[in-house]
């Protein structure tokens, strides 16, 4: 984002006009937005603007599945002729209502999939065809700790547009030309509305906890690789991937082939390092058989290794993992326990 984008004016949209606004966009591109599903919401394709649901703090699953779907066909093949055909592109899309924590998740995944010698063409193609509209957060949830990562309710990270919610209207930040195209017919924000937004941004949100001090802790934690503290914190882990699949930054995947007679497809599907068989070799050797080893990998990968390689911590403090864990494993408590452990052992 360069300085030139800043000259795009902020726009305004009344909340009651949101369905109409989305219906208009649906005429030329698909729209994915939070949609109600019983007692929660999920990012889902909209059939009509009125289906959008912003009642919940954040959707149950993160926005990563728009660019990194749980099931992605890499190509179709014919075993007899050995021919390969790649699937057609998904098409132009607007991803609407993305929370700041999920925007940060997209930023982290952008780094991974586009870094290094090999770029992930599937992720990047979806990314290129999607305009992202973020949405400001009204107030933190019980399990939110995004403030530990410098993310606040109005962090717009990679978004083309960002909807700041006032009482009855949104003030829209326009960050890119692509975003401008979608909102150019909306009225510009008035001085009064900008003042209101400024006042709103000045309010300090009430989190349920202090931000976790990460920088030094993460470096030192890596030095305690062989400590029994990992087994201690992971003892109740049952080895499912609930935390992994709802996480905005987790990105491990598997590649498998599915066939029916001669034809088939090569699929990319989500996988997780918390599964006991994740690192199982064909020979039967498994470097990580214990829950403690896997928890250590998860924590160190997210808070240390990924940071070493990509310059971003692979966690956005969204708190979903804390909510969904069946045995109430709480990453915040784990980090706290690790800090305590470091203090305990450094005194020796």
């Amino acid at each position, binding site marked *: 984002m360069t300085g030139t984008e800043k000259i795009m004016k902020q726009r305004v949209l009344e909340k009651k006009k949101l369905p109409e606004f989305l219906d208009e966009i649906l005429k030329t591109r698909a729209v994915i937005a939070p949609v109600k599903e*019983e007692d929660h919401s999920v990012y889902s394709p909209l059939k009509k603007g009125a289906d959008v649901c912003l009642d919940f703090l954040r959707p149950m699953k993160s926005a990563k599945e728009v660019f990194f779907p749980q099931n992605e066909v890499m190509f179709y093949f014919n075993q007899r002729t050995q021919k390969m055909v790649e699937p057609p592109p998904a098409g132009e899309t607007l991803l609407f209502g993305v929370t700041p924590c999920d925007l940060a998740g997209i930023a982290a995944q952008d780094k991974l999939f586009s870094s290094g010698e090999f770029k992930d063409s599937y992720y990047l193609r979806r990314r290129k065809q999607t305009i992202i509209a973020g949405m400001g957060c009204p107030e933190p949830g019980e399990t939110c700790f995004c403030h530990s990562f410098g993310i606040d309710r109005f962090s717009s990270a990679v978004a083309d547009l960002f909807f700041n919610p006032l009482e009855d209207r949104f003030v829209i930040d326009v960050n890119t030309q692509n975003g401008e195209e979608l909102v150019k017919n909306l009225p510009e924000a008035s001085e009064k509305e900008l003042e209101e937004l400024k006042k709103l941004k000045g309010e300090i949100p009430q989190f349920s906890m202090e931000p976790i001090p990460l920088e030094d802790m993460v470096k030192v934690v890596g030095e305690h690789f062989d400590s029994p503290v990992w087994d201690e914190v992971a003892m*109740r882990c049952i080895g499912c991937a609930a935390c*992994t*699949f709802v996480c905005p930054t987790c990105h491990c995947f598997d590649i498998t082939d599915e066939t029916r007679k001669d034809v088939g497809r090569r699929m990319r599907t989500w996988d997780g390092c918390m599964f006991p068989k994740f690192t199982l070799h064909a020979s039967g050797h498994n470097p990580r058989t214990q829950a403690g080893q896997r928890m250590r990998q998860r924590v160190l990968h997210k808070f240390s290794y990924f940071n070493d390689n990509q310059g971003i911590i692979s966690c956005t403090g969204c708190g979903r993992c804390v*909510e969904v864990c*069946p045995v109430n494993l709480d990453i915040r408590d784990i980090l706290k326990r690790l800090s305590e452990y470091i203090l305990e052992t450094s005194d020796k």
Partner: protein
Amino acid sequence: MKMKDYQEEIRKKAAELLESGEVAMVIGYGAGSLPHRTMPIFIEKPDQAEKLVLNEFCNNNLSVYLSRLKDLGKLAIVAKPCDVRTIVGLINEKQIERDQLHIISFSCSGVKDKDGEHLSPVCGHCEISLPPIYDTLIGEEKQLEKKGEFIDRYAEFDALSPQERWDVIKGEMEKCIRCYACRNACPMCYCEECFVERSLPKWVGEGSELTDTMIFHIVRALHAAGRCGECGACERACPMGVKLGLLTNRINADILELFQHKAGTDPEKPGAMATFELEDYNDFIK
């Protein structure tokens, strides 16, 4: 006597068992990091017994940890009556020995759902409030009624036609993200390698394609048939709110009708599908 009155007694008993060296570890509930939550804890020293709690948010079935911890020696476990049913199942299937366990149980008036307000649906339909076996019974030995409002969905489900039921189940399966929290929370799913993990041959595809997901859940429900203790751990573990009880518990109702057997209530009787009796119905043979 309310569940939280049992808390002191459980702490005393746990400290006693550890002090005397009778057990190597007590598996129980501890305070959770969120309101309406508790978490499994593992106590090895008597002074840690203070951490044990008991309240209406103690929903996990702790017997899922028995197979991985049994090498430590004799274990004590805090178990609701439904949890004891799965312990009985594990003993039947030789996954753990009866004399390697000290079961601390109590007469149960139900636990809350994940929302912390309603009674868990499994509890609403549960007719068992006393554990089938135990070593220590906290509180009185009497049948308690389950207290609280719950959403009864079985009556509604049972009234549907088979096609309608299939559509309901399909709708639920569409929410599944194949995280396997249900399978991993289930004490009866103790297989070293689950059928979904096999690659030679590959029985089920990975990812969340609906047909694969339905095969996973239907086959798992059939594997659990006659063994499922109706503890509700699977449904409570699910992050997406899939109503797994509609499969697992309804199959249990069928097993009761066909074989007059309720899993995990009699330590001498193995699961209905694990054995064969001459009296078994055979009117499907034409």
